[in-house]
Structure formats: structure tokens, C-alpha cells
């Protein structure tokens, strides 16, 4: 990430430098400069720079975020967000984290210039709001499928076509078009499978370009994913965790001892299946840890459940 500070009073500039360095804890390496360029992601300017700012921003890219420091929080001229100069470090640090999360997510959208046309269908389903409709028709070459997104189903002429579509899903070149209600007459001889299982299967294709890492903001499940035919123990483990409270991708990766990229891919799949919702803040681990003191019966039950879990091949089932 590239940030620029302009005309800030020294105590505020110092707090901001510390807050920017602390972003490393969330995976953001921020390079600070005192001039705006085409690479700049964030401009932190004092309101006193006035018209000078507009001129400088002419050199910045359109998606650059501006924070203007004034006497109070609010919205300034041209809709620019204003932040009080007196804001302490404890508030600046999470504010910057939220901004960097949104910049990263924005930057990874397929319609941003650097990614245009390179992302596959799963990523588009997860990020494009215009594709959030009941039925979609997808085609890539000879492969044709219908996604009944609101019904959590995928339809094709045969199972092999569904498997083939899953293997290609994260490659570019898919034509995706919403099916309007009037067009929808579902072919009665087509086969139907779980959409969630299909999306998870698509992550296994080694030929697809890697998906970007999701923003490290807390999310939780809206519905349990249909994992009946999804042979992915990590997906089940993550679903169970997201069911109880909100987690970020990095928290899930730590909890499951899995690479954050793997966790992130599964979160994209859940997102494409309309299963995830953002949570404003991740609750603490109180829910998971706030269990009453264990009795002997509890211990016996836990031991029994652990043996059952092992017997049925459940991974990550320590109690």
C-alpha cells in the first residue's frame, strides 16, 4: 500500500506514522511518501492544504482514498471524509485498517483496470452485485450450466458437464448472464447438484490462477453450506466456526492451522454461494471459551464424541 501525508501538524503526523506501521499486524506493508503519485492508495492531508490538494490529486488514480484532517469527523467538500485532528492513536489504527481492507477488496474486483478480464466466474459471483439474482446462465466454450443461486443448485446436461464446469470455473472467459423470470424454464432432463459443493470443488483445479486474499474483516455465515458431496474437511471446520461467531480469514487460518490462502479461497466460495455476511466487529472468543466448569460426565461425553469423530474421519476435532 502507498500512503501520502500532506501538511499535517507534527503530533498528528507522528500518530499516523505509528498507526500505519501497526498495519503490518494485519498484513499491510505501507510505504509512506510526501508526494502523490499514480501508485498512491491513501492521502492523509490537513484541511489547510486547501486547493493545493485538488491539484495534487490530479496525479493520483481515481480510486485513491482521501482523509482530510479538520476540527471534527464528518464529510467535507466534494464528499471527502473528514477526521478530527485530535483523534488518538487507538482510533486511528482501526480506522486505517478498515480503509486498507476496503482498498484491497476494491483493488481485487474484476472491474478494476489491473484485473479486468482475468478473473474466473467464482470471483465474479462473489464480487459483482449485478449477478446477485435467482438464476444465471454460464457458458464457456461448449460447457453450459445454470446456477440457481437462491436455490443453491447447479444444473447441467450431465454430471460430467458439472465436473468439467467446476474444473474451469476459476479460469477467465466465462459468459455470465442473468435469466429473467420470463426466460426461466428449467430443463427437466438436466441433472442438479449442490451449488456450494460445486464451488468448493472448483477450488481444486490446479490450472486456475490463484484467487486474491479476502479482506481481513470479520464475517459469519448466513446459512450452513450444503457440503453433502464436498470432500473438504477444512470447509466443514470453517463452516462450523463461522456458524457460531464472526471470524476474519487470518483468525480462521490460525484456528484451523491452515494457510490463509486456502481459508481465503473457501471464503470466496462461500461468498459466491451467498452464504457469508459481514459482521461489523468480530466478537471475542467468549462464545467458544465460555463453557461451564466440566464435570466428569462432560469429560466422558467429550471423550465419546472425540472417538466418534475419529471413527467418522472428522478432522480438527480436538475437544
Amino acid at each position, binding site marked *: 500500500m502507498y500512503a501520502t501525508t500532506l501538511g499535517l501538524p507534527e503530533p498528528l503526523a507522528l500518530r499516523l506514522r505509528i498507526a500505519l506501521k501497526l498495519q503490518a499486524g494485519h498484513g499491510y506493508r505501507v510505504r509512506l511518501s510526501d508526494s502523490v503519485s499514480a501508485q498512491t492508495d491513501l492521502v492523509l492531508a490537513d484541511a489547510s492544504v486547501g486547493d493545493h490538494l485538488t491539484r495534487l490529486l490530479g496525479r493520483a488514480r481515481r480510486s485513491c482514498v482521501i482523509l482530510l484532517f479538520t476540527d471534527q469527523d464528518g464529510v467535507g467538500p466534494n464528499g471527502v471524509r473528514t477526521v478530527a485532528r485530535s483523534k488518538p492513536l487507538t482510533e486511528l489504527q482501526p480506522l486505517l485498517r478498515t480503509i486498507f481492507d476496503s482498498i484491497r477488496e476494491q483493488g481485487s474486483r474484476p472491474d478494476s483496470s489491473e484485473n479486468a478480464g482475468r478473473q474466473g466466474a467464482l470471483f465474479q459471483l462473489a464480487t459483482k452485485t449485478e449477478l446477485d439474482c435467482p438464476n444465471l446462465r454460464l457458458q464457456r466454450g461448449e460447457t453450459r450450466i445454470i446456477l440457481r443461486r437462491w436455490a*443453491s443448485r447447479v444444473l447441467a446436461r450431465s454430471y460430467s458437464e458439472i465436473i468439467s464446469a467446476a474444473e474451469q470455473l476459476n479460469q477467465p472467459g466465462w459468459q455470465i448472464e442473468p435469466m429473467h423470470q420470463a426466460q426461466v424454464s428449467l430443463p427437466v432432463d438436466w441433472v442438479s447438484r449442490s451449488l456450494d459443493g460445486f464451488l468448493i470443488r472448483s477450488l481444486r483445479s490446479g490450472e486456475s490462477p490463484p484467487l486474491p486474499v479476502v479482506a481481513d474483516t470479520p464475517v459469519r455465515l448466513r446459512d*450452513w453450506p450444503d457440503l453433502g458431496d464436498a470432500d473438504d474437511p477444512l470447509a*466443514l471446520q470453517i463452516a462450523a466456526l463461522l456458524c457460531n461467531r464472526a471470524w476474519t480469514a487470518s483468525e480462521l487460518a490460525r484456528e484451523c492451522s491452515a494457510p490463509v490462502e486456502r481459508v481465503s479461497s473457501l471464503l470466496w466460495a462461500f461468498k459466491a454461494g451467498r452464504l457469508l455476511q459481514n459482521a461489523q466487529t468480530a466478537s471475542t472468543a467468549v462464545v467458544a471459551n465460555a463453557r461451564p466448569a466440566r464435570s466428569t460426565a462432560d469429560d466422558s461425553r*467429550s471423550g465419546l464424541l472425540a472417538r*466418534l*469423530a475419529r471413527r467418522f474421519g472428522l478432522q480438527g476435532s480436538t475437544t
Partner: protein
Amino acid sequence: MIDPFATAKIVFAGPVGAGKSTAIRMISDTAPVSTEVPWLGESDSDKQTTTVALDFSTVLLDDETTLQVFGLPGQEHLAFMRPILLTGALGVILVLSANDSEVAESCRAWWTALTAEEADLPIVIGITHSDRCPDFDLGKVRAALPSDRGLVPILTFDPRDAEQTRQIVRVLLTLLLHRG
């Protein structure tokens, strides 16, 4: 003293023809004891027998512990069996068929009946026959359940596939483990 944890029990419930007996057979170590009689229902179904009292089989965990697997009869006139078989169960797998045009309503009715026996009974819902039903809508089944119990796992599966049936059991176990 008898150790109640030396034997565990899970129960498969659901209407006639959903696939409970097949699912139980797929996960069991022993051939299930079934009370099956010839099926005299719709002739266009693959179903040749139906259970009229219960299914029972076991899964051996180790030398000391056995998992008992029961199947509730689906017929309404055998509903009196439910409290008997549900007593002491770790959880229930409710099996429904996507072939049923009123699967969402059936899900709600079974959910109500099962939770009336034990309010916080862990329940996982497994839906069969969905592969040949292009109209099947999982969203409608999700919406049919009350929201006061949090998220309820609803999965589609093929009861003839041992791995998919084990996956349903894994989800039930995941629920139990996360309850602590």
C-alpha cells in the same frame, strides 16, 4: 455402575421413502435389523420395501464402546415410537426427499415434531433424491425452519453413497463438538 457413555445413540428420522434405511446400512458395521415389509405404494418408485417399526444397527468405536443407530418409522401411526427411540440420543439426522413437492412443509412439520420431544436436540437435515429434481429449492427448505435455534445444517446427499452419508454424520458430530 453402568456407564451411559459406553453406548451412544443417533437416530435417523423422516418420512417414508426418504432413504433412512439405506443411509443406516451405508454407515453400519453390522447388517441392520429391519422390520421391512413389501412396499405397496406408488409403483413408479424404486422403493421395494418399507420399514414398519424401526431400523437398528451398530457402529463399533472400540472394544468398549458401540454407537447405536436407530431409524424411526416414517408412518404417522407409528409416531408413538419417537419418544421411546429419541430418549438419550446424541442427535438426529432428519432425512427428507426432494421428490416430495412439499419438502419444505414436511421439513417444518418434522422439525416441530422432533423438537417437541426434546427442545434442544441437535438436528442435521439431509435431503435425498435432489440430483434428479431440477426444481428443488434448498432456499425454501432453509426458510421453512424457525430462526430461534440459529443456523441448522441442511445438506443434500445420496444415501447410497457411504462417503456422503458419513459426511452427514460428521456434520452432526461437528454440531455436538461445538456445543462442548
